Structure formats: C-alpha cells, structure tokens
C-alpha cells in the first residue's frame, strides 16, 4: 500500500470530477473523519486514516482490500472507475438519470439506456457527461455517460441510446471473478 503519486492523483480526480464535479472536495476534506486514497496492487482504495494506519501492519502480499475500492489503473496507465465506487458517486452526483422499472433489468444486464426506459433526467445535462443511473425508487444502479444533452434527448425516438453504460451493480454477479 502506498499513497498516490501526483499523476495518479490527477488521473483519479479527473475521472471523478466527470461524475461529481466540484464535490470532490467533500471526499478529500471530510468533516467527520479524514480519509485518504491509497494504492495497492494497481487498485485505488478510499479509506479512513485510522483504518489505514492499522492496515499498515498487514504485509503487502497479504493485504487484499481496505475501505472502498474506487477503481484500478490499467496496464497502460489509465484509471478505470469500478462499480464499487457507486456509493460515493451516487451521494455526490451532479447529474442523475432515473430509469423506469421496465428498463432496470436491461441496464443491469449491461446494455445501454434507451430513451424508452428513461424516467427522469436532471435538467441541462450536457453531452458526454458522466451520470449516475438510479431506479425510480432512488436506488443507485450504476453509472454511465450521456450520449446526448437533455434538450437533444427530447427529440430522439424511443429506441435511441441516451446513456452509455459504464458500470452497473449487475457486475457483482456477472464479473464476480474479475472484480477483485
């Protein structure tokens, strides 16, 4: 486990800012307990400092996970955000998309969100913006990237894609083997 370097931090925050924008400051400066990012085996973990200090006593080959895994760095150095970060994304998300009950299952299978499944969407969402996908009961289901801005979405026909799928909670079952 080691702290993130400058470039790594930049990559992580850039990705996060796509979804939560300015609210990143809430992740870094928390009122209750200071948290920090740590890197272990190419995975980025977000963990409270007290837990992190205790976890230092665990040797590197034996440490599997601490706190919450946000994502991992690929072999080519890009940072990929995982579904395990959904909790924090959903909490601080700026742009949200709600999908209808009949659209839940297709999204959980990994398909993109179609216009026909769209329930609600935050106003003035720009194009190619990171959004968090919720069900109508406000249960976070995953996140994605908008294909069109809100205004354009109105003109689309029902089979058009409006949100590109990036991650969904169904991956806990589908990608059990590769998730960790």
């Amino acid at each position, binding site marked *: 486990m080691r702290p993130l370097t400058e470039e790594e931090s930049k990559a992580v925050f850039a990705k996060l800012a796509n979804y939560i924008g300015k609210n990143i400051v809430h992740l870094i400066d928390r009122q209750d307990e200071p948290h920090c990012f740590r890197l272990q085996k190419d995975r980025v973990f977000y*963990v*409270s400092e*007290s*837990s992190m200090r*205790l*976890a230092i*006593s*665990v*040797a590197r080959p*034996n*440490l*599997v*996970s*601490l*706190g*919450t*895994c946000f994502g991992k760095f690929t072999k080519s150095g890009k940072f990929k955000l995982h579904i*395990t970060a959904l*909790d924090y994304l959903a909490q601080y998300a700026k742009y949200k998309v709600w999908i209808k*009950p*009949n659209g*839940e*299952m297709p999204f*959980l299978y990994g398909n993109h969100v179609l216009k026909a499944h769209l329930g609600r969407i935050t106003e003035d969402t720009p194009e190619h913006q990171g959004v968090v996908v919720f*069900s109508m*009961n406000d*249960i*976070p*289901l995953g996140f994605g990237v908008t294909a069109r801005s809100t205004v354009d979405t109105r003109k689309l026909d029902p089979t058009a894609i409006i949100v590109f799928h990036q991650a969904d*909670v*169904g991956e*806990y*079952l589908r990608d*059990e*083997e590769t*998730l*960790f």
Partner: protein
Amino acid sequence: MGRRAKNKQGDPSPLLEVQENAGRPSQKKLGKRKADDVETTKRPAKKARESEGKPPKPSALKGKEKSSVKVATKAKPTKPKPAKQKQARFEDEDEGAGSSEGWEDVEDDEGLKAQAKSLFHNSDDEDFVGFEGDLNDLDMDEADQDDDMFRGPVQELDLGSDDDEDEPELPVKGKKSKQHERPTKIIPTGSDASSDDSDEDEDDEDGPITIKNMEARSRALDARAAREAELDAEEMRQAELAGEASDDDLADVDDVDMDEEGEGGEEGEEGFVLPTAEELEEEKTRGGPDVHTVQRRMRECVRVLGNFKRYAAKGRSRSEYVQTLISDIASYYGYNEFLAEKLFQLFPVAEAIEFFEANEVPRPVTIRTNTLRTRRRDLAQALINRGVNLEPIGKWTNVGLQVFESSVPIGATPEYLAGHYMLQAASSFLPVIALAPQPGERVLDMASAPGGKTTHMAALMQNTGVVFANDANKARTKSLTANVHRLGCKNVVVCSYDGREFPKVIGGFDRVLLDAPCSGTGVISKDASVKTNKSERDFTLLSHLQKQLILCAIDSVQADSKTGGYLVYSTCSVTVDENEAVVDYALRKRPNVKLVDTGLEFGRPGFTSYRGKTFSDKLSLTRRSSGA
C-alpha cells in the same frame, strides 16, 4: 419490478414496526420462551403465532430443549467493569448462507401473517403435536427431537481478573427454537405413533394438558400404538417365515421361533428378531439388504432401545442392537460407518434418528437485511412487490427474513445487487449477535469468507471503527471483498493470513470472532458430501487446528479494552471434539480467560462431560443449537 413478476397479491398493508432495541439486536427479553410461559399461553394465540413460523415446542414437554443461542453478554459492557475483563464468547453455530432454522415468531404485519398462515398451517401441526403425545403416553425415554441439528457449544471466554466472579452471570433462558417444517419421517420412531393421526385433530385441542386430557390421550395413543405394533408384528412374522427357509443352517432358527411366539404372544409387538453377525454377513454378500428390511429393522431397534428391559430379545446384548442400528443408519442414509457412529453417540436414540432425518431435508432460505442501506420493512415491501413470499423471522432478530417461495431468483434481484440484503442462514446471525461489536471498536474476524458475519458486524458498528476480515484461503477473499463492497461496508480491511499468525500481524482487538473451519457435520443438509468424506483423521486434524486458532484468537484480544474484551468461538459442526473439547482446552491453557453467558435465549447447554471425558463446569454456559 421485473417484467416477469407475477403480482399474485395486491399491495400488502405496510408492516408494523417490530420492537427494536436500540443498538442491541438480541436481548434476553426478546422472544422469551420459557417452558412455563409456553404451556400456559392460550392455544389460539399460540396457533396464530405458530402459523407464522415454527412453533415453539414447550420445553416442559420435550425432554430437552434445543436451540442454543449464546447469550450475548452485552450487559457486561454497559455495566461499569470493575476490572476490565475480556470475555470470550464461544459459539457454535450453523454456518452457511442458505439455511435457516430455529427462529422465533414475531408479531408483525397482519398481511404477512395472513399470507403465511396458509403456508404454515399443516407443517406446524406436525411439529408441535409430535411432542404432546410422547411423554405422556409412551414409555420412551427420549422425546422427539424437533431441533434436528446440533451446533457446537457456545461459550464466552472471559479473560480477566478474579474480580469478574462477582459479576452476575446472565441467566440462561430455556428457549425453544422454532424448527423448520419437519418432514414426514421415513423411519417413524415410537413417538410417531402418537403424532401421526393426532396431527390435524389434536392441534386445535392442544390446550394446557390436564389430567382429563392426558388420560384420554393416553388411551388413544396406546390403542394406536398397539394397533401399529400388531401390524408390525405381522409383517415381521411374514418376513421371518419367508427368510427362515434360507437360514436353516444358522443356530438362530430355534431362537427365532421361540422369540416370535414368546414375545409376540405377550405383547403383540416383539416379532422382531435381531439378526446376528452371521445373518448380516449373509445379507451383505447377497448384495446388501433391501430398503424396506433396513427400515423395519431400524424402527424396531429404536423401539427396543427405547425400553430395553421390556422389549429386548433374550440373550441379545444392547450393544448388538446398537451396532445393527448404526450400520443400518450408515447404509440407509449414506454415511460412512465412522461418522454414523460418531453422530449417533451424540444423541439419545430417537433424537439421533431425527437428526439423520433432518439432514436429508434442505433448510429454508433466509436473508439478512443490510441495515446500512435499508430497513427490514422496506426491504420486505420491495421484495413482496417483486413477487417474493417472505416473512420476518422472529423476535430475536430484527434483520432476518425467511423466504418461502419466490418467482424471481432471490440472489439476483436489483435489491440484492444494490446490497440491501445478504443470503445467510439464520443461525449465522447468532455468533455476531452474541459478540455484539460496538461502534468504534477494533474487531477481528479470523475466518470470514464469504463475509456474511463480517458484513453483519460492520452493519452493527454502523461503519465506524475497523473490522479486520481475514481468511486463509486467498481465492475466497475475492468473494469476501465483493460482498463487503456490495453491502457498502466501508470500515473493513481484508487480509489473507493463516489465522494462526495473529496476533503477530496485529493484535489488541476489542472483539474477536472465530468461526472456525470445521467438519461441517451440522450442515449436512447443505452439503451431503460430508457424510462420506470425513474420517477419524479429519477430526483429529481439525480439532488440532481449532485449538491452535482459539489460542491465537485469545491472544489477539486486548484484555483491558474499555468496551470489549470478548471472543466468540463458533463452528457449524455438532461433534464434541470440535466444540466442547476445544473450549475446554482453551480454558485450561489460558487461565486468564473466563466463560461468559452468551446472552442468547435459545440453545441447549453444552456438555460438561462426554463419554469419559470431563470438561470444566463452565461449559454449560455454551450453547448448542440446531439451526437453519
């Protein structure tokens, strides 16, 4: 809602709020079921509650109480501790996600009650009445077992100074655990004679047992028993006459005749003759006995052993009957001889048969609500809307739900994926409830995969403090981590060490949970391969490993912790050498450790002596429960 969800019912009325103890899941007062209380409650009321779940068996009627719940010594931490003591609580438990048993009814939503009533009506009857007849009417010493599986003993170790002796032990409450629906017995024991016909009839009449009732029932049951015995005797005689021709060369022929006529004439029951060793050998060479013969023989052996003086054939020793019964059990249920004998010796005869029967039946599915994300009533509502038939489990837990049937896969609903619940056996709640980790503590789970108990602890601690989840098997840490993340536990550190390396890695924990790797004899219904692949060597190795682990666990607890100082040891096996023996070993090796009451309301006390081995008296604080 899934598009294939069948909306079988209209919107259910919202659930009534279940009584919740702030921060303390199971208290003594939850679901108290003393023997006396049960007996004096009115029948109809009990019936209504029974229909929700498993009926509690009046412990007075039953010879024994099964259901061990470790009494959580939660009271201890709240009291100002004179000398900080560490209490290690040992628990034995049924490990596993899928099965659930042994839970209490809970007063809950009327709608759910009504729905579940129809489901439970018949099954409960069978369970309940089986006992009524037993003790009153038959000469059997053993009462019918409702709890099918024994879990290991639950104990709390108190590591502390002698001042601890003053602290009052929490009284152990007798509690009946609810059993799952009992299957119709393949091998009816003597008690069945009473229960078979009376199931439907007597259930409603089961009031307080008065003298009048007893007499009437006695007579009815005797009549029934006699009738059945006659039928059996008839069968026996037919079989013997048929078999006699081939047994001419055996010396027993004369005996057979004599026994049949002699005993048959007296009581009309004892037409059964125990085959000798030679006969059994012959049977084996003929390719093994057929199922019906084995069944009959088992039934008769059980009957004979129930009252040996009266029913035994002359000149045959008790051990012969026992031996035959054990080998029949092994061949009938599919165990190897060693395991059949080992498990048989744990229980009285009729209970043993019940145990073997119960292992054939799959346990009901239960789920635990993840309190970090949702509440039980909301989750129940959401699942019912998807078409799942479920019910809250019982008074002793406010997070458990039992699933009866579901039109959608319960392990793949959007709620499951969102981390709102975890598939877990009800008995797996018990060690965590007994351990009662408090917010802000440092807790260790030494063998935590796949993470049901770890996530439960994190939920109880409300994501504060830190939980170290360890598992020796690196491949299993994957599923552990996945579950931790899915359920939104943010204070968990997952590591992969051999448990014996603690506390070298890190020590000073406030509480430690050791759910030790075991033989799995308590969860045979989930994994039938245990029946055949366990040998004597396995038990020796496991026992040795468990003893090492428990010592390491004790050393990892910080004795002078302000809020904690507890260890809970639990397994999912029923054998003594994995439970009582291990705890006794720990007590002897660590004199600064003390056993404490678990705070759980059900469960049978652990053995203080077993087949020549004696353990410390304190082991009666441990709990054996059969669970689902």
